[in-house]
C-alpha cells in the first residue's frame, strides 16, 4: 500500500508540472486558435532564465525568480510580436508551422548560448527527503505540487472574476463580438500569450532543481504537456491540470507495475487513445474548431 501511495505522490508532483505546461497550450489555443508547439521550449527558456539570474548573476532566490519571470514575459512578448501577430489572419497550417519554427529557434539559440550540456540547479525548497509514515517525500516535490495547483486556481479566479480576465475570456470565445463590445482585443490576445509564456517559464523553474537545465528539455516536457492538454480537453483550463496529474500518475504506475520501457511511451499512447476515443478530452465540450 505504501508502495502504491509512493507512486501517487511521485506522479502527483510530476503531474502538476505537466498541468502547468498544459495550461499554456490551452490558454493560447483558446485565444489564438492555434496550438503553440513552442510552449515546451518556453519551459526550457524559463529554466535558463532562472539559471542566469540565480546561478550566473548570483541574485538571491526571492529576486532571481521574479526577475526570471519578467524575462519570460519579455521573451514571450517578443515571440508574440514577431511570430504570432504577423500571422494572425494567415491559414492555420502556416501558423502552426510558425510555432514549430519558434521552438526550433529557441532550442538552438539556447544551445548556442549555453552549450549542449546540462547545468545543475540548486533546490529552491530543499532536496533532502523526509520520511512521513513510510512515505519518502521531497520538499521540492510537495511545493511543486502546491505551487502548481495554486497557480492554476489563481489563474482561474483571475479569468472568472476580474475585468481583464473576463475580457480575455470574451476574446477567447468570439474575437469579433468582443471587439464590438468595446474589448481591446489586441491587448487581450497579447496578454494571454505573454501570460501563457510566463506560466510555461515558471514550470521550467520548478523543474530545474530536479531535472537539471538542458536545452533539449523543452521537447521532452513540451510533448508531455501537450498530451496532458489533450487528455484534459484542449479547450479547458481546469482540464489541463486534471490531465497533467492523470498523466503524471499513469507514467509512474506504468513504469512500476508494467515495464519501465513503457514510461515514455505512455504519454503518446494516451495521446493516441484520446484522439480516437474522445477527441474533446476528459473535461472538454464538443468543439468544431479545427487545429
Amino acid at each position, binding site marked *: 500500500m505504501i*508502495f502504491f501511495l*509512493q*507512486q501517487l505522490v*511521485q506522479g502527483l508532483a*510530476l503531474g502538476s508540472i505537466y498541468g502547468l505546461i498544459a495550461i499554456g497550450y490551452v490558454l493560447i489555443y483558446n485565444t489564438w486558435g492555434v496550438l503553440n508547439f513552442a510552449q515546451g521550449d518556453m519551459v526550457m527558456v524559463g529554466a535558463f532564465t532562472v539559471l542566469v539570474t540565480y546561478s550566473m548573476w548570483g541574485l538571491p532566490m526571492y529576486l532571481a525568480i521574479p526577475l526570471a519571470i519578467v524575462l519570460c514575459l519579455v521573451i514571450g512578448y*517578443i515571440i508574440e*510580436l*514577431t511570430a504570432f*501577430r*504577423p500571422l494572425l489572419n494567415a491559414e492555420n497550417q502556416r501558423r502552426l508551422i510558425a510555432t514549430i519554427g519558434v521552438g526550433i529557434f529557441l532550442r538552438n*539559440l539556447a*544551445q*548556442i*548560448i549555453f*552549450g*549542449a*550540456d*546540462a*547545468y*545543475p540547479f540548486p533546490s529552491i525548497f530543499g*532536496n533532502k*527527503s523526509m*520520511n512521513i509514515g513510510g512515505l*519518502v517525500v*521531497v520538499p521540492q516535490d510537495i511545493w511543486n505540487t502546491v505551487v502548481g495547483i495554486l497557480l492554476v486556481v489563481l489563474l482561474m479566479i483571475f479569468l472568472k472574476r476580474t475585468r481583464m480576465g473576463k475580457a480575455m475570456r470574451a476574446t477567447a470565445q468570439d474575437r469579433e463580438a468582443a471587439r464590438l463590445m468595446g474589448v481591446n482585443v489586441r491587448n487581450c490576445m497579447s496578454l494571454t500569450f505573454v501570460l501563457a509564456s510566463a506560466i510555461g517559464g515558471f514550470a521550467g523553474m520548478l*523543474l530545474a532543481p*530536479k*531535472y*537539471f537545465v*538542458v536545452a*533539449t*528539455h523543452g521537447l*521532452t*516536457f513540451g510533448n508531455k504537456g501537450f498530451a496532458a492538454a489533450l487528455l484534459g480537453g484542449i479547450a479547458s483550463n481546469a482540464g489541463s491540470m486534471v490531465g497533467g496529474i492523470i498523466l503524471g500518475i499513469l*507514467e*509512474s*504506475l*506504468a*513504469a*512500476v507495475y508494467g*515495464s*519501465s*520501457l513503457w*514510461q*515514455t511511451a505512455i504519454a503518446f499512447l494516451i495521446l493516441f487513445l484520446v484522439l480516437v476515443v474522445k477527441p474533446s478530452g476528459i473535461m472538454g465540450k464538443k468543439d468544431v474548431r479545427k487545429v
Partner: protein
Amino acid sequence: MKKFLAMLMTVAMLFALVACGNNTTTNNGTGNNGNTGTGDDTSTATGEPIKVGLFGPMSGTNAAVGISQEEGVMLAVKEINAAGGINGRPIEIISEDDENDATTAVSVVNKLINSDEVVALIGSVNSSVTLAAMEVTQDVGIPHLTAISSGASITTSGYDYIVRGQASDLLQAEAVVNYAIDAGYEKIGLMYQNDDYGGGARDVILEIMADKGLELAADEAFEATAADVTPQLQNVKAAGCDCLIMWCMYQPGATIANQAAQLGMGDLQLLGGGGLTNAQLYELGGENVVGVVNSQTFLAGADAVNDFSAAFIENFEAEYGDTADSNNAMSYDTMYILAEGLQYCLDTYGELTSDGIMEGMKSIKDMDLATGTITVDENGDAVRDSILMVRLVEGGGYELVQ
C-alpha cells in the same frame, strides 16, 4: 509604430544571435588550437596530406565527450606530424559534428567520404550513432575507427572495416559484474539506457550472471533523455538491491544518483561502465555521485602503465592545461592505431588502400599505448590486459580500486 517596434525587436534578436554565433566561433577557435596548428607551423611533414575524417557530438547530448575525443585525436596528430608524419606526409583531420544523432552521423560520414575524400574515419561516441555510421563505412569499404563506443555489437556483428580503441562492453560489463560479486553484494540491480549502448551491455550482464548461476534483483530500462527515473528506482528499492549497475552516459548517471539520494537510497552502491566518465558527472551529481565505481581504460592519477602513457599525460597537460581523462586517452590511442595502419600500408603497398590500412591495423601486436599494451584482434577490437575499476572521490577526482 507597433510595426516599427516589431521590426526593431526582430533586428535585436537577430543581432543577439549573431553576437552569440561569434562567441562560439572564438570558443571553437581556442578549443581547436591544436587542430589548426597541426598542418603548417609545428609540422615538419611536408608531403601530400593524408585526410582523415573525425566525427562526434560537438553539440547536443554528450557534447563534452565529443570534445574530449577531438582533443585526444588532435594531440596525437600534432605529435605524429611534428615527427615527420607518415613517410613525410602530414595527417590532416577534417572534423564534423554528428549532434549525437544517427541520421546526422550518416550524412556527415557520407560528406567526409564523398566530398572530402578521406582515407579513414574516426567516430563516434554513442554506440547507436557509431553503428549507423558503420553501415556506410561497411558499404563503401573504408577503414572506420571508434575511440569511445563500447557497445558489444560493434565488433561482434561481422563488420569488416571497424577497429575499436575502447574496451568492448563484453570486457567492461564483465569487470563490473565481477567487481560487484567480489565486493560481496548479493542483490545486484541494473538500470540501463534503452539503446545499443545500454541494451547491449544488459545482454552481456545477463549472460555473465547466468553463467555464475545468479539473477538480477532488478532489471529496469529508461530512455536516455528521460528526466524522471524515480519509478525505476522505486522498483530497485522494493527489490532490496544493495548495489545498482547503471549502464548509461554521465548525464542520466547523475540523474539516477540524485534521484536515488532523494528517495533515501543513499546506501545503495552505484556502479557503471565507461560512459559515466566525464567531469560533468560530478558537476551535476555532486555529493551524490561520490563513491560511484566504474570501469575505465585509463586513469591519469594512477602510475603510468608505460613510458608512452607517461609521455601522453605530460603532453596533454602541456597542450590543454588539464588532466587527461580516459576518453582523451582512448582517442589519442585510436589515432596512433590508425597511424600504424597507414604506415604499414604505405610501407607494404606503396599507396593507401582501405584493405591495406585494415591489414596494417589488424596486425598490431603488443603495442604500447596510453591506455596499456594492446593487440588488435580479427574483429577489430583492441584487446588489452586489464580493465581498471575506479572510484569517484570527494572533489570530483578518481582513485583506483583495482
